[in-house]
């Protein structure tokens, strides 16, 4: 490292061969993820070679190299921590392809309000509405008109309950 810092190009390969595996191992041990560790080791090595000419011969070369790697490891950890906690786009990305957190909150409130309104309905009305939502139709010659009537009545009751609770349709 001393020879390299003085400009001796022949010392490059030995330094590279010694430091690259060392920085990789150190970063892997510190980060636990191979891809992240390689990123950290590469960035550390880049900074090390960029500042190689400034190396103080009185210092320990390994400690100097690990200093660069430690900084990169800490930076990556902090960046990862920030991304996990504050990245809204990451938070918004739902496994089922849902919307933004705002959409999710609105939907949650609407579901709670709907549950509240449906809670006052009779069991028969709930079953009728569930059948409509699931696309089921009762079979039989007169069942069509009866079912339509039941649906109409169930909707009327939901509307009434909603209006009583929230004051609007």
């Amino acid at each position, binding site marked *: 490292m001393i020879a390299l*810092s*003085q*400009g001796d190009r022949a010392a490059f390969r030995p330094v590279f061969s010694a430091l690259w595996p060392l920085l990789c191992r150190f970063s892997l041990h510190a980060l636990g993820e191979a891809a992240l560790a390689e990123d950290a080791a590469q960035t550390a*090595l*880049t900074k090390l070679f*960029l500042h190689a*000419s400034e190396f103080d011969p009185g210092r320990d070369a390994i400690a100097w190299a690990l200093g660069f790697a430690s900084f990169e490891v800490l930076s990556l950890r902090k960046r990862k921590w920030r991304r996990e906690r504050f990245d809204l786009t990451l938070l918004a990305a739902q496994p089922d392809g849902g919307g933004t957190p705002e959409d999710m909150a609105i939907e949650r409130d609407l579901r709670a309000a709907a549950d509240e309104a449906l809670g006052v309905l009779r069991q028969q009305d709930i079953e009728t509405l569930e059948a409509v939502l699931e696309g089921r139709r009762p079979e039989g010659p007169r069942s069509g008109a009866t079912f339509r009537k039941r649906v109409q009545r169930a909707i009327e009751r939901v509307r009434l309950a909603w209006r009583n609770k929230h004051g609007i349709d």
Partner: protein
Amino acid sequence: MASTEEDLERRMRAIFELGRLAWAARMLVVIVPLLFVARWIGRPASLLWPVGGALTLLAFGLAFVHLRYQRAAVAGIAAGLPALLLPWIFRIAGEVCVGGKCFDPCLPSCLLTGAIAGGLVAMRAVKEERHWSFWLAALAVAALLGTLGCSVAGGAGVLGLLGGVAAGSAPVLVRAELRRS
């Protein structure tokens, strides 16, 4: 070695060279003010551009190549400073009259400062392991810097400087060689 690792090594080598360039750029902190001084003491731009440019490139290149040559460049600058300034000081002082005969002291001052530069550079070079390359590098820098000053006395001044450098260096180098052998 895997190809990705070879690529990485190649990239790191380029980055190392970039770092060396940045390191060598520090020489400009020394050279550029000297060029301003040369301009300030009235050296013509037609001389300053080629000689100053060559001096800058040489010092920068030496610092880029190796720390040993960077030291040589610094030694050359230190040794060449009297040659830059002394002829100018003598020119301001005017003609010197000794025993009823008057003469321009610029030419003798170039010989003198050349000998000083040659001696200093040679004394510094013999301490180095690769003293010949060190001497040559330092001498080139000192000669370029001295040329800026000794050109006050024209071409003869520059020739005087070079003669002085040779006269100053030779005894030191020959003695060192004899000791080594």
